[in-house]
C-alpha cells in the first residue's frame, strides 16, 4: 500500500507545473515492473485532489510492457515466464530496457 504518497507526489508535481491554472487531465507513464495499481491511485487521487486546482482531474495511464535488450546481439524482446534468454541468439547477457518507467508525462490545463 503506497498509493497514497504516490498520489500526493503526482499532485505536487502537477500543481507546480500548472502554475495556478486548473488541471483537467494528467498523463502518467508507468512501467510494468513498477509496483503501482491504477485503480488504487485513482481512488486516492479523487480524495487528495479535493479542494485543489486539480480537483476532478482525470488520470490517464500508459503502461509500458517489460522489454529486455540482448547485450550480445542487440535484440529487444519480452521476457518469458521463466527465462530471460535472448530468443534470437540464446544469450543470457541482457539488461532491462523498458518497464521501470514511472513519471508524469504531461498535464492538460485550462487557459
Amino acid at each position, binding site marked *: 500500500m503506497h498509493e497514497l504518497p504516490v498520489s500526493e507526489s503526482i499532485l505536487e508535481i502537477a500543481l507546480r507545473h500548472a502554475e495556478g491554472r486548473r488541471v483537467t487531465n494528467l498523463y502518467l507513464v508507468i512501467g510494468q515492473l513498477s509496483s503501482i495499481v491504477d485503480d488504487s491511485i485513482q481512488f486516492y487521487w479523487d480524495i487528495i485532489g479535493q479542494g485543489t486546482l486539480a480537483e476532478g482531474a482525470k488520470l490517464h495511464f500508459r503502461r509500458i510492457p517489460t522489454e529486455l535488450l540482448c547485450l550480445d546481439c542487440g535484440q529487444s524482446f519480452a521476457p518469458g515466464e521463466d527465462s530471460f534468454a535472448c530468443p534470437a541468439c540464446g544469450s543470457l547477457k541482457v539488461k532491462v530496457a523498458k518497464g521501470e518507467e514511472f513519471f508524469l508525462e504531461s498535464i492538460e490545463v485550462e*487557459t
Partner: protein
Amino acid sequence: MTIRIPVVEKILSANDRLAAENRAALDAAGVFSLNFMASPGAGKTSLIEQTVHALAGKLRIAVVDGDIATSLDADRAAAAGASQAVQINTGGDCHLDAVMLHEALPKVNLAGADLLIVENVGNLVCPASFALGTHKSVLIASIPEGDDKPYKYPSMYHGVEALVVNKIDLLPYVPFRMDFFRQGVEALNPGVITFPLSCRTGEGIEPWLNWVIQQVNLKRNL
C-alpha cells in the same frame, strides 16, 4: 480551452531528493550504510543478528528496523549487540521510503556508528522503487522461497549491489535449482556479488562478514 503542458518528471523525484539528503548526512558522519531487502521471513533480522554478533568488537553497528507494526526486530538487533537499534513503524506501508529514514536518522547517533544497517519491510516488490539514500542495497533471498524469484521479481534483483542466498542448510530438503536461479540473477544483474550462506549453521558467513568490513573500510579511507 485547454492546453497540454509537457512535464516529464519522475513521480518519486521528491523521494529521490530526500534520499540524497540522507546520503549526504551519512557521508558527513562517515557512516557506511546498507539497505536489507527481502520477502517476509527470508532472514533479514537473522542476518543482522549474525553480522552484529560477529562484528560487534570491530565495528559500532546501528540498526534501523522497518516494520508495519511491533518493535520485535529492533529488540532482536539490540539483543545481538547492536550499539543502537531504532524502530520505524510504517503504519501499514509496505516499504520504507526516504522520508521515513529521514525522520529516523536524528534518533541515531551517527557519530557513534561505523555501519548503519536498515532492515526494510518484508516485501519483494515495493522497496525496489523507493531509494533510501543508503550506500548499498542487499537482497536476501532464501532457499525455501524457491528458485524462480528472479524471474518473478526482476526489479528487485535488478537493482541491488549484493545478493545473499540464505538458508543453504535447507538445500538437502527443498528442491532448488541453483543454476536456474543464478541464470536469472546473472541476466538481471551481471556479476553481482553473491553470498550463499546459512544464518542457522554459520556456513558461508565469513565471506559476507569480510565484504561488510571491506565496504566499511573503503568508506573510511575516502
